[in-house]
C-alpha cells in the first residue's frame, strides 16, 4: 500500500512531503526513544511518534522510513519541517493517540 492510500484511509494531514506519497508503506513502528526506533524499526515503515523536534528527520532518513506520523495533533517544529523538506521525508499528522492510530494502521496493512 502506498502513503497516499494510508493518508486517505486514516484521514491524515500532510504537513510536508506531499510529492512522495507514492512511496510504499510496508509496516509501522511506534516509538519515542530514538535508539529504540533506530535499532528496531524497518525499511519502509511508517514511524509513529510524539517527538516533533528536528532529530526525527535524520532517524527516518537513516532507516529509510516511508514517512513520519505525528500523533495527538502535534505539529512538527519549524526546523523539523525545513529539514524534512530538504531530506525528502514526508511528515503526516493525526489527532488520534498512538494506540488508536497504530491499531488502525495495523488493520489497514495486515487486517
Amino acid at each position, binding site marked *: 500500500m502506498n502513503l497516499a492510500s494510508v493518508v486517505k484511509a486514516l484521514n491524515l494531514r500532510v504537513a510536508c512531503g506531499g510529492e512522495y506519497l507514492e512511496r510504499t508503506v510496508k509496516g509501522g513502528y511506534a516509538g*519515542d*526513544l*530514538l*535508539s*529504540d526506533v*533506530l*535499532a528496531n524499526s524497518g*525499511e519502509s515503515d511508517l514511524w509513529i511518534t510524539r*517527538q516533533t*523536534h*528536528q*532529530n*526525527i*528527520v*535524520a*532517524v527516518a*532518513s*537513516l*532507516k*529509510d522510513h516511508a514517512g513520519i506520523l505525528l500523533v495527538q495533533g502535534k505539529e512538527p517544529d519549524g*526546523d523539523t519541517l525545513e529539514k524534512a523538506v530538504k*531530506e525528502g521525508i514526508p511528515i503526516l499528522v493525526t489527532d488520534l493517540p498512538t494506540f488508536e492510530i497504530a491499531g488502525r494502521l495495523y488493520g489497514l496493512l495486515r487486517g
Partner: protein
Amino acid sequence: MQYENSYPVKGGDFKEAGKVAVLVKMALKKMGVAPEILRRAAIAAYESEVNIISYARMGTIRLQVRDDHIRIDVEDEGPGIEDIELAMRPGYSTATELIRELGFGAGMGLVNIKSCSDEFEITSEVNQGTKLRILFRIPETG
C-alpha cells in the same frame, strides 16, 4: 574500493545530531555497499555521533572503506568512561533530563553499536576521551 573521510562532531550540538551519520550513509550508498550493511553502519555512526554530542566536547568520526570491510573509528575529547562494563549495560544512562526529552538517553547506544557491527572495541581514558573501533565485514560476492 578505497574511500576515506573524516567528519568532525561538536559536543552539545543536538540540532545537528545525525548529520554525520547521514553523510556516512550517503557515502556508502554511493559506493554501492549492500543495503543491509549500509543500514547497520548508519546505526553505528548515528549512535557514535549522538554520544559525542551528548557527553564529549568534540570528536571525530573517521570512515574507511575497503573491498572487504568498512571501518568506523570514533575518537572524542571529553570526560571518558570510568566503568565501560557498566556503560555497555542496556538501559544504563547518565543522560540529562534535557537529553531524554529529545528521545536520546535510552541507554541503548553502545549496545546497539556492538550488536549491529561485526567487531567492536571501546577504550576510554577518564578526563581525556573515548575511542570506538567499529568494523563491518563485506562478504565476497560473485
